[in-house]
């Protein structure tokens, strides 16, 4: 076109080449980056929970100790799951260490997306594998007699209540340990709520409690805490072998639990039908809730006025914790146990460094350091190791650790919310029906009848009734045996 300038043809050629280079640059660049980082850096994908903030505050200690760099990327729950599944399906090395929800273990393990940690544990005595509470390993990390992850944050459930309100009402303190619980039953719990609901405390009209009613996941988390304690089970036989996923959701204990869940809602703020976990926690910390049960991280989170704001709440020093009651006096107890663990994708090209990180982050020393972080208040007490619960310094910071440990030891994450394949589909319809029963759109009887039919349809449609794959006798005793064997005991 012009002698000195660039012709349109040349421009298009150059532009095309540049475009092609740019288009290819991203994956090539990623590969180069992964290659350069091999052995020097581990990429960690986590979820934005309180433990993640504590971990990020102390992660430099790992780099100082090992010389291995760490890139941590925190995502929301759904985004993390979507990102992981996308990476697994495309076989891309998206991360070396990933945070795994207990409900994902069966899916990830059965599909070969994460690798078993058995060999690493067996060959590395520094892991102090015997220090883990077996209930935490059982609930969060084992599947078909293999260890797939190590727990980084374990949550049980327990009660928080206002000591000043109890005093004003002339009520005795609630039992902080199972030994003190005696005949402490849910009916006693409801009786207290009946008494304190509507009481005036320093000019504030108090609600007896608050539920977490948002459907589907939050309400299932909290309702199953009650229903498991009542003896309700989801399936005919699971996790004990042989697995029979015929639903047992429409049972007497579950119906009783749902009726009582509705009673709890009656003593709660009406808007709690839409509450997520932190809505209930922050509502309590604002000062007009007398008593509630929740996941144990809220034992310390309620000290903040909002969610991790760092501003002390009006209920600091006016809150005590207690163990959950049983359905019948002195009856059996099952506490919901959940949380997060760290696993290693099969695609990780950096497995030794990844193991070093998992071992460190779930180790007693790092966990203690996380517990001592005080940025926006103390923000991590979700220990999975006995030695952390025995630590005097940690007990001083978190005086409720004794109660929490007792709840952990009664915890069973495979019964309260069984991590069977397609759990999330079941949880979706279950949560919806519980929420419908709360709103009065259906009766508790109708809700459970519908849930059972939907469970049957989903489980049959997904080839789980009858279950054609080999079962495993997934019991706490078998996890204890596995723990002993991998610990060389």
């Amino acid at each position, binding site marked *: 076109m012009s002698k000195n300038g660039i012709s349109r043809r040349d421009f298009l050629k150059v532009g095309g080449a540049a475009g092609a280079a740019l288009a290819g640059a991203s994956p090539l660049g990623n590969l180069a980056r992964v290659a350069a980082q091999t052995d020097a850096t581990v990429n960690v994908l986590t979820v934005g929970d309180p433990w993640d903030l504590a971990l990020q505050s102390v992660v430099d200690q790992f780099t100082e100790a090992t010389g291995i760099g760490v890139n941590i990327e925190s995502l929301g729950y*759904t985004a993390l*799951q*979507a990102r992981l*599944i996308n990476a*697994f*399906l495309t076989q891309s090395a998206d991360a070396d260490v990933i945070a795994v929800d207990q409900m994902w273990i069966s*899916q990830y393990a*059965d*599909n070969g*997306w994460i690798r078993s940690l058995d060999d690493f544990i067996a060959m590395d005595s520094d892991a102090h594998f015997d220090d883990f509470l077996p209930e935490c390993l059982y609930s969060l990390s084992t599947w078909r007699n293999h260890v797939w992850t190590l727990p980084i944050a374990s949550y049980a459930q327990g009660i928080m209540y206002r000591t000043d309100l109890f005093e004003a009402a002339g009520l005795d303190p609630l039992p902080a340990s199972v030994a003190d619980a005696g005949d402490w039953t849910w009916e006693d719990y409801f009786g207290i709520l009946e008494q304190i609901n509507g009481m005036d405390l320093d000019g504030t009209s108090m609600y007896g409690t608050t539920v977490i*009613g*948002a*459907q*589907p996941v939050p309400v299932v988390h909290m309702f199953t805490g009650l229903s498991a304690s009542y003896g309700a089970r989801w399936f005919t036989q699971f996790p004990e072998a042989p697995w029979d996923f015929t639903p047992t959701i429409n049972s007497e204990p579950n119906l009783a639990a749902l009726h009582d869940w509705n009673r709890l809602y009656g003593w709660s*703020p*009406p*808007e*709690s*039908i*839409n509450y997520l976990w932190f809505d209930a926690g922050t*509502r309590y910390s604002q000062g007009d809730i007398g008593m509630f049960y929740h996941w144990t991280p809220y034992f310390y989170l309620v000290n903040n006025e909002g969610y991790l704001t760092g501003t002390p709440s009006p209920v600091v020093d006016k809150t005590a914790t207690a163990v959950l009651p049983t359905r019948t006096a002195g009856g059996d107890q099952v506490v919901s146990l959940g949380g997060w663990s760290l696993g290693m994708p099969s695609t990780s090209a950096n497995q030794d460094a990844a193991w070093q990180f998992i071992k460190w982050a779930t180790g007693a020393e790092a966990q203690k350091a996380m517990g001592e972080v005080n940025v926006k208040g103390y923000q991590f007490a979700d220990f999975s190791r006995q030695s952390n619960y025995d630590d005097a310094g940690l007990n001083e910071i978190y005086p409720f650790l004794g109660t929490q440990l007792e709840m952990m030891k009664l915890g069973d994450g495979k019964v309260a919310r069984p991590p069977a*394949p*397609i*759990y*999330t*589909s079941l949880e*979706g*319809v279950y949560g*919806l029906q519980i*929420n*419908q029963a*709360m*709103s009065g*759109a259906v009766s508790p009887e109708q809700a459970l009848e519908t849930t059972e039919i*939907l469970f049957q*349809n*989903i489980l049959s*449609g*997904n*080839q789980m009734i009858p279950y054609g794959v080999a079962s495993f006798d997934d019991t706490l005793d078998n996890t204890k045996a596995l723990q002993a064997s991998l610990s060389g005991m």
Partner: protein
Amino acid sequence: MRFRKRLPYLLLAPSILILLALILYPLGFALRNSFWFWNLQTSPAPLYHSGLDNYRMVFQVTPFAEALKNTLLLAGLGTFAQFWFGMGIALLLYTHLRGMGLFRALLIMPTTLAPVVAGFLFRYLLEPKGGLLPWLLEGVGFPVPPQGFLGNAGTALFSIGVVDTWQWTPFFAIVLYAGLLSISEEVLEAALVDGASRWRLFWSISLPLLRPIAAFLVMIRFMQLFNSFDLVYVLTSGGPGTSSRTLSFNLYREGLVSYNIGLTAAMTWLVVIIVSVIINLYLFFIYRKREW
């Protein structure tokens, strides 16, 4: 000569092929998967041909009918409200009153917010304990449900519609205002000289002349509202119960939470068919006397 005749087609071919691939491939992929059992919770690959089972499961295990009803209500009433509020504001802007320039500049702001941000904003504004809107409404004697507007099955969907209307009415207003400005003043003056009232002027001249723009706007917003997800997710997560669950939220639950790819593909196709029928009927009635 023959080559010159074919040249335009050859030049257009790559764009058309890419366009077709981008539309047809995902649809074809979804159609194929809708007849396969493929649940990522149990297997990374499709397991077996399942005939119409996924379509049956859509109605058996998901609240599809409720979600469809809610979606149609939200899309229909939302589009209707936004169009007429937008028209009212556009007419107000057209009056050239003092301060309209500033008002016009402020008007576009809600539209620039991400729906998630608008959702969080209104979640707090609608909070029954201390939220500004319930407080104001109670102050003027408007009954506020004890669970709050978002927690009540009778008001949750309506509240989502109100937030969407708050956000998107300005879009209608600005575009319709631009449409009003494009109408020849001579036509309006001629009608005034002939004795037409302001109402007759609007109804018989402005509105028919705005029809092409309005019809397009309504179609676009209806489709956007039909696919509402962000606000539903942030404000109510489809609850309480299924009272504010939409089809997009259903798709999200099955696809990105339950990872049931086969069932999600079947639901996608049902949605594609429903939207196509609605939009084609709409286009037929709106443009039947025109070429478009």
